[in-house]
């Protein structure tokens, strides 16, 4: 059964049809590349899955059960985690503090509860080790490389039992060496059985790590095929409109 299934999803803002009748499904442990030009509707689509917008039409199902999201917090509760494009990190805090931001571990009784630094450092360290990232929980994020910052943002998704991780342009603003690091992080998530939706402009990244590619153009899904059966040329043609649509 698909972990997430979208059926005939549409979203319009007034007269503007941002997403038009899109259906697709994602299996556990699958990496799906979501591609399209600016304004193709990929952000809107992802924001519906993340609970920022609710669809105008259509239904979303998670593990077969209907999924209705009114707030981002509800998406998180259902096991949908987002890695934001700007990573949403506080430079003045440590890596561990950022990982646990909004979900701090505390100890104590009733209202008298204090931050449990030791547990948070330990757990954050475990997650970084799992992700095979050389990131130190006690260091300030300010001093970190782009790849380490990505690791901190991705580590957040490992705090709960995430089923789906949405990643918005994770490789847009980092160096070539760090891109490889981030793609490895994505593979580690996949190996844990997590479905990853990778929104990206970078063709090589999608072809490197994704199992399947979905192309959007002007709010419609114009392609949904296995990476092995496609080519960068074909996807470029689909994004620009040179190729109208493929099955």
């Amino acid at each position: 059964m698909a972990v997430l299934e979208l059926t005939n999803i549409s979203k319009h803002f007034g007269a503007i049809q941002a997403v038009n009748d899109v259906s697709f499904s994602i299996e556990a442990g699958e990496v799906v590349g979501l591609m399209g030009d600016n304004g193709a509707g990929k952000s809107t689509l992802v924001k519906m899955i993340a609970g920022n917008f609710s669809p105008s039409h259509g239904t979303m199902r998670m593990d077969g059960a209907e999924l209705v999201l009114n707030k981002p917090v509800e998406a998180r509760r259902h096991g949908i985690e987002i890695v934001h494009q700007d990573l949403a990190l506080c430079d003045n805090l440590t890596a561990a503090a950022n990982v646990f931001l909004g979900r701090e571990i505390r100890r104590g009784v009733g209202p008298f509860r204090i931050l449990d630094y030791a547990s948070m450092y330990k757990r954050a360290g475990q997650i970084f080790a799992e992700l095979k990232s050389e990131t130190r929980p006690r260091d300030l994020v300010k001093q970190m490389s782009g790849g380490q910052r990505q690791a901190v943002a991705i580590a957040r998704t490992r705090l709960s039992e995430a089923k789906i991780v949405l990643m918005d342009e994770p490789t847009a603003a980092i160096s070539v060496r760090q891109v490889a690091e981030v793609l490895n992080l994505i593979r580690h998530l996949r190996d844990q059985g997590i479905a990853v939706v990778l929104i990206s402009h970078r063709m090589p990244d999608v072809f490197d790590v994704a199992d399947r590619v979905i192309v959007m153009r002007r709010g419609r899904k114009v392609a949904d095929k296995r990476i092995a059966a496609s080519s960068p040329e074909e996807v470029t043609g689909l994004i620009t409109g040179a190729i109208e649509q493929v099955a």
Partner: protein
Amino acid sequence: MAITLDQTIAHKQQSWLAEKLSSQTFWVLVAVILACIFLSFATDSFATSKNLYNITRNVTFVAIIALGMTLVIITGGIDLSVGSVLCLCSMILGVVMHAGYSIEVGIAASIATALVIGACHGLLIAYIGMPPFVVTLATLSIARSLAMVASGNTVVFQFGPDHDKLLALGGGAWFFGIANPVVYMVVLALITGFILRWTRFGRYIYAIGGNEHAAILTGVPVRQIKVAVYMISSLSAGIAGIIQTGWLGAITTNIGTGLELQVIAAAVIGGAALAGGVGTALGAIVGAALIEVIRNSLGLLGINAFWQGCFIGGAILFAVLFDRVRKFRQSE
């Protein structure tokens, strides 16, 4: 031997000592101590118990408000109203007690006034989205005006049946000859330090100052925290007002004029960054102490009091410059 991933992760880039040595607060503290040692030798009157009693007590009013201000500054905000809020809270206390009510009623009225003002600031800033500078600038004007209205712009110096209790509260020395205001300051500093370091509320204050957008995205209740922070700032001004009233024994409508600048100076000298995200309770106290030591020493060294502003201004520039130079070195 190869270094494993686990070892790398367990390692910390800076040791505890190195971190302390690189903090602005630490070096300002060193400056305060050196100044005190120098003054003890250079003048006969500095290291007398009477002068030290005076200094420690004078520090407290600025320091207590600087504690609240530091929280606001860490979130990236500013509170310009504290001087006027201090005046209004003192005046409410004075007027209520003068009318024959007990000291408890007076203090309750005064604290309530402070909290209401702080809540108004917080709501306008966090929910309506007005800039903190503008909102608190308005209150700077409004609160002092209300103090004049409440008192008819007269001096209040008779505090009804609990007159002596109030004077003992602010002017006494109940513990080992330490002035009461100093005791209050130490207690409040410990509470503030604890909140910043050990509570989720404190963590969120830093997060908001570091990256407000990130705080919102990760589910931090940013608006509620901001309201609370401005309430704490006004509360600290109110508490300082109550203590100062007890110490002075009289209230005029111009007490606390220009105090906001001294308080902000103390917070900034102590290491709080106006851009947000950085600051400590200890820093607020140390910053206030440096300002007071400068003021006191100028008098004792026989330097004309007109020079005071230059030295305090110089200290502000020097403390922040020091921090800049340190960061330049780090980035190179």
